[in-house]
Structure formats: C-alpha cells, structure tokens
C-alpha cells in the first residue's frame, strides 16, 4: 500500500460520496458525473490492488494481517460494480443515494485497510 494513494482515494471517495448523496436527495437520477465518480473510485481500488501486490517486493510488506487486508480489498472492489449495475437498472434518485452510500463505505474500508497495512501489528 502507498500512503499518498490511500489519502487520494479516501478524499475522492468521501467527496464523491457527499456529492452523490446531495444530488440523490435533490432528486437527480444517476448521470455521467455520479457514475463517473464511482468508476473513478473503482479505478483507484484497482490501483490499490496492484500496489498491494507489488509493494511487498519493494520491501513494503503489510504490518498486519494480509488475509484481513485482502478480504477488505476484494469486498471493496465488488461494491462499485454492484452500485453501478443497480444505478443502470433502476434509474431513480435513490440509485444516486446508493452510489453515495457505496462511496462512503469504501472510504471507511480503505481507511481500515491502511490501518491494517501500516499500524496493526507494527
């Protein structure tokens, strides 16, 4: 895991989550912006996966439990896909709210992954 990538990811996920919640409660259906934010969060998660696989070879191994780390990472990777699928099937404002909930859940999960990698067991 790379610390600056995590900071960027949490910032994007929180900002995107608040944006989606606000637009959703304002009655907007999912659009290119809200779906785009969730797609960006997913791309950053794939970046996390690559960095998690590569980092140990560069001497940056997780201080905590790798199994727990990857359980979080794989769960997080599933969420945007599920949220976007839902948003494409159900084009209502509640789908936009759901995209926001997904983004905020991922922010919490990425923070937790950061704790496992750098703090837990250190």
């Amino acid at each position, binding site marked *: 895991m790379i610390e600056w990538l995590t900071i960027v990811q949490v910032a994007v996920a929180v900002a995107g989550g608040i944006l989606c919640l606000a637009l959703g409660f304002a009655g907007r259906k999912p659009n290119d912006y809200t779906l785009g934010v969730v797609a960006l969060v997913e791309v950053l998660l794939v970046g996390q996966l690559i960095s998690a696989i590569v980092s140990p070879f560069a001497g940056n191994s997780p201080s905590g*439990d790798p*199994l*727990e780390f990857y*359980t*979080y990472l*794989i*769960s997080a990777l*599933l*969420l945007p896909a*599920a*949220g976007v699928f*839902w948003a494409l099937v*159900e084009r*209502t404002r*509640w*789908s936009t*709210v*759901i995209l926001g*909930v*997904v983004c905020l*859940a991922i922010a*919490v*999960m990425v923070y937790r992954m950061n704790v496992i990698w750098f703090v837990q067991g250190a």
Partner: protein
Amino acid sequence: MPELTAPAPRSTRSKGVGRVLIVVYGILALGATGRSFVQIAHSVEDSQQVPLAFWLSALASVVYIVATIALVAPGRVWYRIAWITITFELAGVLVVGTLSLTHPELFARPSVWSWYGNGYLFIPLFLPVLGMIWLRSRRVGVDAADRDASDAA
C-alpha cells in the same frame, strides 16, 4: 392510502428509500461475512478452539444475508422472514452488547454485536430499528400485493 387503489408493484419493499436500506444491509452482510471468515480462518489455522464470539459473528452474518434477501423478495412469507431476521438482529445486538459490558470475558474478542456494534459505527444497533419502521410502513402494500395476486389466480 394510495397503495390500496394503485396497481401493486412486484415488490413494494424494494421501492423508494427502501432501496437504500437494502444496500446498507447488503454492505453490512458483506462486511460481517468477510470479518467472521477471517476470524474463523485464523483460529483454525492456529488450531485453537474457535471462540464463541466468532461463531456468533458467522451466525449474525448469515442472518444479515437472509434479511437482505427478505427485504428484496416479494410476498407475505418473505415479509414475515424479514420481520423474524430483523427482530433477531435487534435482540442479538442488545443481548450481546449488554453481555460484552457485564461479562467481558465471554466476548473478549470483537464480534459484530460486541459493545453494541461500535466496531461497525453502531450500524448494527440502529439498522434493525430503521428496518422495522420501514417494514411497518410497507404493511398495507403487502396486503394489496397479496390481494391482487389472489384476484389474478
């Protein structure tokens, strides 16, 4: 009450704001399943006896999955299952939450429900209550859906 006259949708429980509830249930089910999988896998790996708290987490995660499905699925039977699972969750978080304060030795390791679910931002504590309010408000819709179904038959 517009639900009595309007054509009943296929599942009134997965409409509107209820969708958000279902997604939060889904995320909690995913999180609880993943966590209890990790906890039990490590206990087995260290060939220890799996602590009671971990089995409880596993049971809780299965109940969360069933509750998520019951909120989505239409019909009277699933409506009842939704009530049973959500009541079980509320009872679980209250009993285990209280026991983790009064008898910490039983729950020395974290489970979904320990300390009223504070490891999960207290979501396990207030989600069942929201679920119950939601189910209660959907009762008329369920009756209408069942009546339409029996009319059609």
